[in-house]
C-alpha cells in the first residue's frame, strides 16, 4: 500500500506544480491579432525550417499581427483537422492539399475564397498551377511548391553496367534494361508500396497519362468516357507486366516508400520511381551525387499522351478559415502576401523543393534538381489521388496492389472503378 500512498502524494505535488505554472501564463497583448496556423512541419527538414523562418520574420516585422504555428505529424494531421472540422472548430489558417482533398471543406463553407488578393501573384505563379487550389470560380489557397509525382531516379553506374549509356526513352528499352539488370542479379526498381499510394500516385499517374492523354481522367469523371477504356487498361497492365518480369523488389508490399528509397540510396537497386519529394532525401544521403541521374517516364508504344509531360500537382497551400472577422481576414491576407513571396521560393529551391515560380538558379543547385525542375516546364498532367474521390482512390490503390500479388486483373480493376464511379454519380 505504500506504493499507492506515494502515488497519491505525487498527485498532490503535481497539482500544486500545475497550479503554479498556470499563474505564469501570459495574457495576449492588447491590439494584437493572433492567428493560429496549423501545419505538418514537425520534422527537422530544410523546407520546414524555411517555412518556419518566414513566419518568424513576419512576426518580427509586424507588431499588430502574431502568427502562432502549431504542428502535427503528417500522418495524423488530417485526422485532427477533420475532427476539428466536425466540431466546427477549425484553426484560423491551415495547411491544405489541393483537388479532391479541399472539396469537403469548400462544400461545408469552411474556407474563405482568396479572390480579393489573387492578383497579387499574377505573373509570378502560372494560372494553371493556381487552378489546383481553385474550385469553381474561387481560389482557396496559394501553392508554394509543385510535386512532380512521376520521376525515375537511377544509379548511373548500375545502368551503364547493364549496357545502357543513355537512360531508356521507351518502355521497350526499359524492359530490356530490367531484363539485363535481372540477369546481373541487381534488383531493377525499388518500390515501397506498403502505404499503397506509390503505385497509383507515382506509377499510374505517369503511365496512364502516356497512354490516355491528360484529358482522359477529367472526362471520365464527368461521364464522358469510361475507366474500361482500352488505353487505361493498357496502363494498368504495365504494372502487371513489370511485376511479372521481376522489375520490383520482392518485399515491395511490405516496406514503405522511405525504406525503398534507402535501398536505392544504398546502391542495391538500379532505379527508384518516386516524386520530387525524394530529391532532397536522396541528395542528403547518397555518397556520390554524380552517380545519380533523373529521367522522366518513358514513352509507351501506341500511347495517345504527350510524352514530354509529367504528372504533378501544386502543394504547400495555406487556407483561411471562413469564420474570421473582417479584421482578422485582413491580417490573414497580409500574411499570405508576405509568406508566398520571391524569398520563399528562393529558399525552397535551396532546400531542393520544386516551386511554381521562376527562380534563378546558380551553380550551387545540384544537376538532378535542375533536371527535375526543367521537366515541369512542359506542362503538368493530373495526379490520380489528387483528382479521384477518396473511394475511387481507395479502390485503385488496393487494386494495383492486388495486381502485383496476382489477386486481380487490370480489366477487373477498371470495371470495379467504373462501377464505383457510376454508383457515386447516381
Amino acid at each position, binding site marked *: 500500500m505504500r506504493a499507492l500512498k506515494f502515488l497519491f502524494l505525487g498527485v498532490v505535488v503535481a497539482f500544486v506544480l500545475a497550479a503554479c505554472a498556470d499563474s505564469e501564463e501570459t495574457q495576449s497583448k492588447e491590439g494584437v491579432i493572433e492567428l493560429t496556423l496549423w501545419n505538418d512541419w514537425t520534422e527537422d527538414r530544410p523546407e520546414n525550417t524555411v517555412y518556419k523562418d518566414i513566419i518568424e520574420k513576419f512576426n518580427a516585422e509586424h507588431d499588430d499581427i502574431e502568427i502562432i504555428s502549431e504542428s502535427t505529424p503528417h500522418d495524423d494531421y488530417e485526422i485532427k483537422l477533420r475532427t476539428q472540422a466536425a466540431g466546427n472548430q477549425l484553426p484560423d489558417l491551415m495547411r491544405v492539399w489541393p483537388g479532391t482533398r479541399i472539396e469537403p471543406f469548400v462544400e461545408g463553407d469552411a474556407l474563405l475564397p482568396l479572390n480579393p488578393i489573387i492578383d497579387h501573384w499574377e505573373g509570378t505563379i502560372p494560372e494553371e498551377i493556381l487552378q489546383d487550389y481553385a474550385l469553381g470560380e474561387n481560389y482557396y489557397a496559394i501553392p508554394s511548391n509543385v510535386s512532380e509525382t512521376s520521376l525515375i531516379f537511377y544509379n548511373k553506374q548500375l545502368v551503364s553496367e547493364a549496357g545502357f549509356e543513355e537512360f531508356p526513352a521507351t518502355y521497350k528499352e526499359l524492359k530490356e534494361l530490367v531484363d539485363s539488370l535481372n540477369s546481373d542479379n541487381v534488383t531493377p526498381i525499388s518500390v515501397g508500396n506498403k502505404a499503397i499510394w506509390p503505385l497509383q500516385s507515382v506509377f499510374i499517374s505517369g503511365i496512364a497519362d502516356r497512354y490516355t492523354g491528360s484529358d482522359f481522367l477529367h472526362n471520365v469523371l464527368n461521364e464522358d468516357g469510361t475507366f474500361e477504356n482500352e488505353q487505361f487498361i493498357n496502363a494498368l497492365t504495365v504494372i502487371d507486366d513489370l511485376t511479372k518480369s521481376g522489375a520490383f523488389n520482392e518485399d515491395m508490399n*511490405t516496406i514503405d516508400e522511405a525504406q525503398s528509397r534507402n535501398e536505392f540510396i544504398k546502391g542495391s537497386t538500379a532505379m527508384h520511381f518516386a516524386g520530387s519529394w525524394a530529391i532532397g532525401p536522396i541528395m542528403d544521403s547518397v555518397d556520390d551525387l554524380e552517380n545519380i541521374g533523373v529521367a522522366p517516364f518513358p514513352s509507351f508504344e501506341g500511347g495517345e499522351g504527350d510524352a514530354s509531360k509529367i504528372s504533378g500537382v501544386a502543394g504547400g497551400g495555406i487556407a483561411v478559415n471562413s469564420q474570421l472577422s473582417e479584421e482578422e481576414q485582413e491580417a490573414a491576407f497580409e500574411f499570405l502576401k508576405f509568406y508566398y513571396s520571391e524569398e520563399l521560393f528562393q529558399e525552397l529551391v535551396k532546400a531542393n523543393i520544386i516551386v511554381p515560380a521562376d527562380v534563378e538558379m546558380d551553380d550551387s543547385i545540384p544537376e538532378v534538381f535542375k533536371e527535375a525542375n526543367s521537366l515541369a516546364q512542359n506542362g503538368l498532367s493530373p495526379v490520380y489521388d489528387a483528382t479521384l474521390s477518396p473511394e475511387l482512390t481507395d479502390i485503385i490503390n488496393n487494386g494495383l496492389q492486388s495486381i502485383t500479388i496476382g489477386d486481380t486483373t487490370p480489366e477487373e480493376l477498371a470495371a470495379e472503378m467504373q462501377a464505383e464511379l457510376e454508383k457515386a454519380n447516381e
Partner: protein
Amino acid sequence: MQLTHKSKAAIMIGLLPAFLIYAVFAIYPILQSFYYSLMEWDGFTDMTFVGLDNFRNLFEDPLFWNSVKNNIYVVLASVLGQIPLALFFALLLNRKIKGLKFFRTVGFLPVVLSTVVISLTWSLIYNSQNGMLNEILRNIGLGVMAQNWLGDTKWVMAAVLVTVIWQFIGLYLIIFLAALQNVPTEVLEAAKMDGASEWTTTFKITIPMIWHTIIVAVILCISGSLKTFDLIYVMTNGGPAHSSDVMALYMFNETFNKLQYGYGSAVSVFIFFFSLILIFIVTKLFGRKLI
C-alpha cells in the same frame, strides 16, 4: 450481508464518482456515436437522417465481412494463444527459481513497448528478402518454407497474429501472477505431502482456484481483440489488398479517410454488439455469474 440495510447512502457515495465520470465521458460519447450511425454526415456539411441505410450498406460490403472474418481470427488466436501461453509462463514464474525477477520483468516488456518499435522490428524479422525468419529457415535447410510473410495474402494474417499474441502475453501474465498469489501455499504443500505430482496439483488445485481469473482474462482478451487497431495499423495497414483488415481499421478508414462519420459509427455499433454477444456466450459456457 448485515451491512446492506444501513448502507444505502454509503453505496451511493461509493459508486457515484466512478459512475458520473464514466457516464459523461465514456457512455455519452458512444451513445452519440450510435446516434450518428443513423445519419449521413461528412463532418463538414449538415447531417441528414437516413434510418438504417448505413447498416444496410455495411452488411452488403464484402470488405466489411472480410474484416469481420479477420477479426474473428484475432479473437481466436488471442484467446487460444495468449491465455494458455500466459498461464504457462505464469505457472513457471510462480516457482522459486533463479533469475525469476529478470524473466518476470522481461516477460512484461512487450506490453510497454511502443507499437512503432514492435512493428519495425517484427517487419524486419518477417522481411522476405533479408528477414531473420527466412534466413533461419534457409540455414536449417527449410528454404522452401520461406515466405513473403507480410506481403502474401495467404500468410499475412498468420504473421500478424503471431506478433499480436506475443505483444500481449505479458498483460495476462501479470494478471495470472496476481491471481496465483491468492492460492494458499498450505493447500499445495498438503497435496504434495499426499504424494500428488506437480501436474496433478497444477490441474486439480491451482487452475481451478484461479479459474475465475482465467475467465476474466478471456473476457478482456475478447473485448480487446475486437477493438484491435494499433499494431495492425502500423504494421500492415490492413494490407496487402485488405487481407489483414480488421473491424476497427475498417471503421477508421471509412470515418477519417472517406469522411463517412455515420457509416463509421455504424461499424462501431456493430463492434459493440458483436463483442457483447461473444462475451455473453463465453460467460454462459464457462463462467458463473460474471455478468
